[in-house]
């Protein structure tokens, strides 16, 4: 089932939580909504589910405008951040809930419901726990019960709100892989919300990066990491360093000095901007006469196979710090001077 979000605006007490957001989700895709808290990612998920109504805009399920459909009519599977399992019901009753509340005519017979529950439990690898209550389960088990419960109504779309947020690191990694396999096996259109970029990059077919109620970039993990389209995405995903620069005469300058980087054809030809690069995408420059960024090591620390140096590259009175990776054998004691040039970088105009 394709899902299209068209020009959605959502206000809470006149404050816009989402502002003119559009997104096309293809059938069978696994999509991550990634952003810092307050970026509107959970609001977008709840709007798709029908748990919130948009102030403006519409949501399409396939060719059908679902904007005015109630949450019940939308037939989505929603997994809540804190699972929202019914504490007074057994695991089996929780999973069967969506089937038992159906009107008499559409409700499967009891034996059929029991069989479906058993199948779902097997699918989430919790067979034998039918009779347990939610408070007798571990966090990871509750998470999977919540997923089975959502799957029981055979939803067209599966929506997960911070699915691994409340779990410890190890269980989180296991469940992440498991969810990917689960998705590949069932082929549902799946959207999940996360603030953990590692989770989004590892798990999703496409990542939707959000900030301040708007979508910054939509793309594969490679797209958003290697080809960020905005300063926000560049600094939000992965480690990065940024340098305020001016461009003129086909030369990029930092505090008036050329740094050995020339703007590319589609970069700005002149003006001020910001140069972004990853700490590992730098080359040390040995020739003291060649143009480069030059900095004094403020601190340096060993990180597994590399060394991270915190450099002050500003002139006296205009300090500017960047962190870069330097080879272990490079001289990087505090106070030494290092000259380098970014090898892969992106220039954003002011």
């Amino acid at each position, binding site marked *: 089932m394709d899902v299209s979000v068209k020009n959605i605006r959502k206000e809470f007490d006149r404050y816009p939580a989402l502002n003119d957001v559009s997104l096309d989700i293809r059938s069978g895709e696994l999509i991550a909504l990634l952003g810092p808290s307050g970026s509107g990612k959970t609001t977008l998920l709840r709007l798709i589910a029908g748990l919130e109504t948009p102030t403006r805009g519409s949501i399409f399920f396939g060719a059908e405008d679902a904007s005015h459909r*109630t949450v*019940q009519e939308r037939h*989505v*599977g*929603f997994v809540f951040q804190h699972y929202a399992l*019914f504490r*007074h019901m057994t695991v089996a009753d929780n999973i069967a809930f969506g089937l038992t509340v159906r009107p008499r005519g559409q409700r499967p017979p009891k034996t059929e419901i029991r069989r479906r529950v058993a199948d779902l439990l097997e699918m989430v690898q919790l067979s034998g726990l039918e009779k347990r209550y939610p408070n007798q389960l571990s966090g990871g088990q509750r998470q999977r019960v919540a997923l089975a419960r959502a799957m*029981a*109504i055979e939803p067209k779309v599966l929506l997960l709100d911070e699915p691994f947020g409340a779990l410890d690191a190890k269980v989180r990694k296991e469940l992440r892989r498991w969810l990917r396999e689960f998705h590949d096996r069932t082929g549902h259109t799946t959207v999940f919300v996360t603030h953990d970029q590692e989770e989004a990059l590892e798990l999703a077919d496409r990542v939707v990066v959000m900030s301040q109620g708007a979508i910054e970039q939509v793309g594969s993990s490679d797209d958003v990491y290697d080809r960020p389209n905005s300063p926000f995405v560049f600094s939000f995903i992965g480690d990065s360093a940024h340098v305020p620069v001016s461009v003129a005469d086909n030369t990029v300058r930092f505090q008036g000095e050329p740094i050995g980087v020339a703007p590319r054809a589609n970069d700005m030809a002149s003006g001020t901007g910001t140069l972004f690069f990853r700490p590992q995408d730098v080359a040390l420059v040995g020739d003291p006469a060649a143009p480069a960024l030059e900095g004094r090591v403020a601190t340096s620390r060993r990180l597994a196979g590399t060394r991270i140096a915190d450099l002050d590259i500003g002139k006296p009175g205009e300090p500017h710090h960047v962190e870069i990776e330097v080879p272990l054998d490079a001289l990087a004691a505090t106070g030494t001077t290092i000259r380098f040039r970014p090898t892969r970088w992106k220039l954003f105009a002011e």
Partner: protein
Amino acid sequence: MAHSPRRLRSPTTEAPLARYALMTTAFLFLALFLLLPLAAVFIEAFRKGSGEFFAAFGDPDTLAAIRLTLLVAVIAVPLNLVFGVAAAWAIAKFEFKGKAFLTTLIDLPFSVSPVISGLVYVLLFGAGSVLGPWLKSYGIEILFAVPGIVLATIFVTFPFVARELIPLMQEQGTGDEEAALSLGASGWQTFWYVTLPNIKWGLLYGVLLCNARAMGEFGAVSVVSGHIRGLTNTMPLHVEILYNEYNFVAAFAVASLLAALALVTLVVKTALELHYGAEIAAGRKH
């Protein structure tokens, strides 16, 4: 090396002497102001033997008072149950203008003297009011009749259920309800299968307190009742009349019934707290 037990005392506990002094004070206070009067009620009721005690309940006026008290409770408690759940639901699960005002209003009967609560109805439905004579022209008596007593009782007891449920429902949030709706349940199914089971023990607790107060209310009911024997006297009012007529055995016999109700309430309440403490709201105010 033998340490004296005194040395092992935790640094945050008081000296044994202070502890015993505090406990003794508390128990003595309770005994003097609660247990002693309670015992006196029963002793007085049985002073002339159980024959006299039971004879007191043969009096038609006494029976009428018991019937009226039960009738009032049977009307007031379910109404306040519905009102309490509705109000708690609205306050805990929705955002709307005037929410803080509603929350304050619910507490009003707790902060106002019951006599005032009664007088409000006298002003509303009395001979000098607009509503009273108009209703009377249709043959509906409010004041000095059963409807007035029911109204006053509802007014005095309406915070109990709502107060009990609001913190509980606020703490539980709307997650479970949203989950039920997303699974296709209707609003009614969600309430019946999800919300109600989540609040059942808190609700029972609130109803219990509401009932105890509905049966025991004196002040507000006294103002609106008119004290017509056999017609508008509830048990607490009847106790007062018997007492003023120096009919001590009968007065204390009826009083012992009310006291027994209080004891049963206390026992059930304690049992509920013991078993379902976590499910009954923590930060209670009464």
